[in-house]
């Protein structure tokens, strides 16, 4: 299982999303590899990913992908992350 946490420049917001996605996965007892990526590298990073986590603002920049794109509104809300990951992976 591979999950990509996506932000515009690949530092800051994607790293926060990665850290909190890992915490949410731990709650769900799901093993997955979470990678932080930026828009420039998302094609490569998400080529074999099941899920892309990102902000609604960045969805149009992702382009064509086979991964499920999950929009996270509050990157610090573990309940939101857990619920959305559970739906996507359940």
């Amino acid at each position, binding site marked *: 299982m591979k999950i990509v946490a996506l932000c515009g420049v690949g530092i800051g917001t994607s790293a926060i999303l990665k850290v909190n996605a890992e915490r949410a996965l731990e709650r769900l007892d799901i093993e997955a590899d979470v990678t932080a990526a930026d*828009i420039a590298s998302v094609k490569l990073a998400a080529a074999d990913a099941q899920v892309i986590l990102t902000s609604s603002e960045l969805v149009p920049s992702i382009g064509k992908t086979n991964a499920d794109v999950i929009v996270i509104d509050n990157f610090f809300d573990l309940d939101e992350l857990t619920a959305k990951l559970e739906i996507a992976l359940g």
Partner: protein
Amino acid sequence: MSLPPLPLDAIDVGLHVPDWRAAVGAAGAALERSGSTAPGYTERMVAVIEEFGAYVVIAPGLALAHARPGPDVLTEGLSVVTLAEPVAFGHPHNDPVNVILGLAVTTGDEHVHFVAELANIFNDSSIIPALAAAPDAASVRSLLGIAAPTGEDASTEEPQ
């Protein structure tokens, strides 16, 4: 790795700004004042939002302004700006914003380590309104639980 120290210079409380650009500008000015960045980094933080939109508004009321590492980042740093009146960044869910964090890192990697600390602080949903209501820089730093830089003493604190 823990968060970089937060000098009082890097904190600006209760600013009045007309729009998101001025808010990000204030976070950039605070990074410059504290010695973390050179002029130019602020413009790059604004350019990130111009290019990619308001995704930096990562929680209700909170923007994490940042740009890629570059020669204008002298040392890793964090700044905190709170606004007297919130401004819109254009985010569909998390507007309006009244707390702006400015973040400058020298490499992508070191950053990923200390960002876990930021998550620990901000996963508590009461922190953003508490920061927005903080009366002065010392209260902001104390709410965040981030260390003062080595050598800073009471004489360097801003008059209140």
